[in-house]
């Protein structure tokens, strides 16, 4: 039987936690470390995805005022908060040299099985959503990421919501909401869930950790032995933390792909529809669908999720929305698909216009001469 190492950590800093995952993945890829499952918690912090522009994703003033460290993950995806109620799951295994651009979607689904299997023992039915989320009845319970290192090591990362302080998250992350009131908090709460909410029991972190650990044992049929970092790994972690994850050039780097936001508000027979789209290049980075029409939050969450990291091509958007409407036909009767498609396309056009303007003016709202934090 294959043996993996299990490392348990708590209260790690953002920079040390990220450095540890990367070193483990590098060493695993190089064959100098065992495949490792690391289940850990961070000191409260906010982490953006590999290529995100941090100023666009986080309320930096709020983070500074509240002493919340910010950092950048090697994995992709969106900004997240981490703390004692979000369990970090890092699985590192050696990859194969011939699968550089292959197996991505399937690897993500495969690596999630430990979490799915573990939570199933609590009676929580978790579904893997093709792009990057684990959901329970359409509500997000974990975000996933995958990174391949130069040594061909694979780092699968998940943040599992054991619990979530939604008001705090809305203060840390930039959101489409102009203000944060009970309504906004309720909207986000309806679109996410947590382990504790699903089982209505106050399981502590160690209990959840044991459940996930056993989930990986069951799903992969491997022998997972408790261990710790080796001395050489610790030295590498220390170096990488100092040289990369404590380096402002890494944390505050920017990208050539500009973010641009577009909004549209239309009146529909079911009520006002408010759509906000954030484009990264021609990719829809995020979508927000709100308004005063009556419908299921699950269906709206599904619509929004289906548009994340999606092409902004009109036909492609229509095709994707049609599938979601088939799935939620009864729940979406008050939100006509034609009106939604029209509003989304209008918001996309406005965002694209904003991006073109910003691109024509290199010192517009997206770019600060010399770098935002130089």
């Amino acid at each position, binding site marked *: 039987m294959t043996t993996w190492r299990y490392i348990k950590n708590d209260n790690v800093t953002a920079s040390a936690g990220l450095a540890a995952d990367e070193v483990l993945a590098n060493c695993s890829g190089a064959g100098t470390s065992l495949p490792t499952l690391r289940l850990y918690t961070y000191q409260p912090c906010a982490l953006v*995805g*590999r*290529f995100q522009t941090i100023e666009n994703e986080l309320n930096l003033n709020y983070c500074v005022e509240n002493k919340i460290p910010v950092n950048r993950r*090697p*994995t*992709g*995806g969106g900004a997240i908060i981490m703390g004692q109620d979000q369990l970090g799951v890092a699985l590192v295994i050696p990859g194969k040299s*011939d699968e*550089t*651009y*292959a*197996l*991505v*979607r*399937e690897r*993500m689904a495969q690596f999630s099985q430990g979490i799915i299997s573990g939570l199933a023992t609590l009676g929580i039915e978790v579904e893997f959503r093709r*792009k*990057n989320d684990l959901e329970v009845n359409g509500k997000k319970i974990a975000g*996933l*990421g*995958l*990174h*391949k*290192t*130069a040594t061909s090591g694979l780092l699968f990362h998940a943040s599992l919501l054991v619990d979530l302080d939604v008001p705090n998250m809305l203060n840390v992350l930039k959101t489409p909401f102009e203000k944060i009131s009970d309504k906004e908090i309720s909207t986000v709460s309806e679109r996410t869930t947590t382990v504790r909410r699903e089982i209505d029991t106050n399981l502590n972190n160690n209990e959840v950790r044991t459940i996930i650990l056993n989930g990986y044992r069951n799903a992969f049929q491997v022998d997972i032995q408790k261990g710790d970092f080796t001395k050489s790994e610790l030295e590498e972690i220390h170096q990488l933390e100092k040289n990369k994850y404590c380096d402002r050039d890494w944390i505050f780097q920017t*990208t*050539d*792909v*500009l973010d641009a936001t577009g909004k549209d508000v239309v009146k529909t027979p079911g009520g006002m529809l408010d759509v906000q789209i954030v484009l*990264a*290049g*021609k*990719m829809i*980075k995020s979508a927000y669908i709100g308004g005063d029409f009556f419908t299921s939050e699950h269906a709206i969450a599904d619509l929004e999720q289906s548009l994340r*990291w*999606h*092409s902004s091509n009109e036909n492609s958007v229509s095709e994707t929305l049609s599938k979601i409407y088939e799935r939620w036909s009864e729940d979406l009767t008050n939100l006509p698909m034609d009106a939604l498609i029209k509003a989304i396309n209008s918001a996309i056009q406005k965002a694209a216009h904003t991006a073109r303007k910003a*691109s024509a003016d290199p010192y517009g709202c997206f770019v600060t001469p010399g770098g935002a934090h130089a």
Partner: protein
Amino acid sequence: MKKQYDFRTNRFYNSNHLWIKENDSGHVTVGMDELGLDSLGEMAYLTLPDVGTPVEMGKAMGTMEAAKMTGEIYAPVTGFVVEKNEAVLQNPLLVNEEPYDNGWLVKIEPTNWEDESAGMVTGNYLSAWIDAEIERFETQGILG
């Protein structure tokens, strides 16, 4: 029915599903092929080496994020970068939309083309290699 993939016959391919096309200038243009992109999904972000940067076959020359996977882009040949595609840096989705045309990544002046191209697939071998790759992907559950 099996999905069809477009592979242009006027270029070389490597195991990372990069295509390499010889230009009249002696430089080569590099891009990603349709099969690799189908598995990887839509490209969200890219970084590419600056003009003049030396690159080495098999070593990282850039980074990418597709959906939620991040990783390196490995140079398919050794040489020097003579041009990078600014259009794909600003709109990475172009790599998926026009992989063999406007979605190219970099142009490289190769310094060991004869030896390195011998390890790539082209010409008469292409058809059999594509079939084998699709079969490999399907067997490993990559496509579908």
